[in-house]
């Protein structure tokens, strides 16, 4: 049984339609990656799932419940959390306050202290900067904070848009290891990545989005080794 099902979803901005009936499902406890060219509609998909963009058609089902009509905060409350593109930090609040805000869902409160400790372990740099305003962090530090804030929400499904964006290589490697660890603790992950190679390497299953539709999907291993796919979809 999939934990998150996105069924035949269509959406766009104003008159412009971006998604044309995309379907995808996440297996619980697995890492799924969603790849595709620039402008394919990956970000739009995530925003639509969260309800930041109103779907024009299709449904989103989370843990068997139809959540298409719920607001973003209600979904976050249920454990469906997005680390958005462009970070979207609370720029005038400190690092620590940003993390606190991440723990807004009730379910996150119980594990607040543990999560706090954990994200500082993953990103010691954030601990050093904890009283600094998010606005003044370096690009990479902001990215760390965005991911850390997502983890603070104690999600059941964590969707990350462009995890590796602007991070130093050493950190990217670390981070993918951390994701594996989170997965082993039962978290379900959806990664949207430009670093296709790496995304497919850590994920169990992959979807390829092109022109607002899912063109292709399958176990990551298969995708990554298929030369046709590599050249046609992954630009490799």
């Amino acid at each position: 049984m999939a934990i998150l099902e996105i069924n035949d979803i269509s959406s766009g901005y104003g008159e412009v339609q971006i998604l044309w009936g995309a379907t995808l499902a996440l297996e619980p406890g697995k890492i799924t990656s969603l790849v595709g060219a620039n402008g394919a509609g990956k970000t739009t998909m995530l925003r639509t799932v969260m309800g930041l963009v109103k779907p024009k058609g299709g449904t989103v089902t989370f843990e068997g419940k139809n959540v298409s009509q719920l607001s973003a905060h209600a979904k976050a409350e249920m454990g469906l959390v997005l680390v958005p593109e462009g970070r979207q930090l609370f720029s005038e609040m400190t690092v620590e306050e940003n993390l606190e805000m991440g723990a807004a869902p009730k379910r996150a409160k119980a594990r607040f202290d543990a999560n706090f400790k954990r994200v500082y372990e993953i990103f010691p740099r954030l601990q050093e900067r904890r009283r600094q305003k998010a606005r003044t962090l370096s690009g990479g530090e902001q990215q760390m904070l965005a991911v850390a804030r997502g983890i603070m929400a104690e999600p059941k499904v964590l969707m990350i848009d462009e995890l590796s964006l602007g991070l130093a290589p050493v950190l990217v490697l670390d981070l993918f290891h951390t994701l594996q660890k989170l997965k082993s603790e039962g978290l379900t992950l959806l990664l949207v990545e430009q670093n296709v190679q790496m995304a497919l390497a850590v994920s169990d299953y992959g979807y390829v989005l092109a022109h607002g539709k899912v063109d292709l999907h399958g176990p990551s291993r298969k995708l990554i080794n298929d030369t046709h796919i590599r050249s046609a979809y992954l630009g490799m």
Partner: protein
Amino acid sequence: MDILAFLTDGLLIGFVYGIAAMGLTLIWGVMNVINLSHGSIIALGMFALYFLFVSLGINPYIGVVIVAVLGLLLGMIIYAVAIHRVINAPHLSTLLATFAVNMIIIGLGTTAFSTSPRNVDFSLGSATVGPVTLLGTRVVAALASVLITAALYFFLYRTTLGKYVRAVTDNRAAAELMGIPSARVLALSFGLGTMLAAVAGGLIATFFPFTILSGGTYELKSFVICVLGGVGNPLGALFGGLILGTFEGIIPYFLPTSWVPVIEFILFVVILLVRPTGLLGAKK
């Protein structure tokens, strides 16, 4: 005659200015909405207190508490009806919306109450210390504003709900993604700002006569105070109020009273230029 008297009178009124400004600075700093209905809401607070006192015979200080509750409700209603739709719209839409609300309140208020002055005939007596005469009502108002400032500060910077308020203002979409019900939080903030305005009105009504138009003066002063103290900073509002009050108290000692506004506003602009984020620095 002692300059002390000038100073004390200025400070006492300063507390009240501070609390009148606090609602404005809260809504402005926290929600980034410049609330042009601030003045008329202050006036509604005055009228609410007046009717509670005159018609129902309720003690003004119990009245102020009732006024606070009414103010909170009114604010949430105004938010839901007039502001929610445009809170994320570009540019100054919210400014226009509150301007329209102001027109409605003043229009209806004038029809209902006319602009004839009302007076809450209530006194706590006065005490004379040396050259200084202290009025009971003003002292109570000053104490109340200190309490309210402390409470507001605590709320915004120490409680989770208060932090949600700041988070929503900072980045509404992100707040939603983090599970913060942004619409409710915004309504609450606006409600709080309105509540403060109404309470300020209620307190002022205990010692000044007023009309439905009286709020305008306090609105203007509130703008000045927001700058002195830094927009969005409740402590700053109190501080700014005290400075303004002190100016108003002291300047007449040296100069003709009619120069008070000239000096006051020039100083205001100068301070703005030297310390754009307020004397205390804006806390956001």
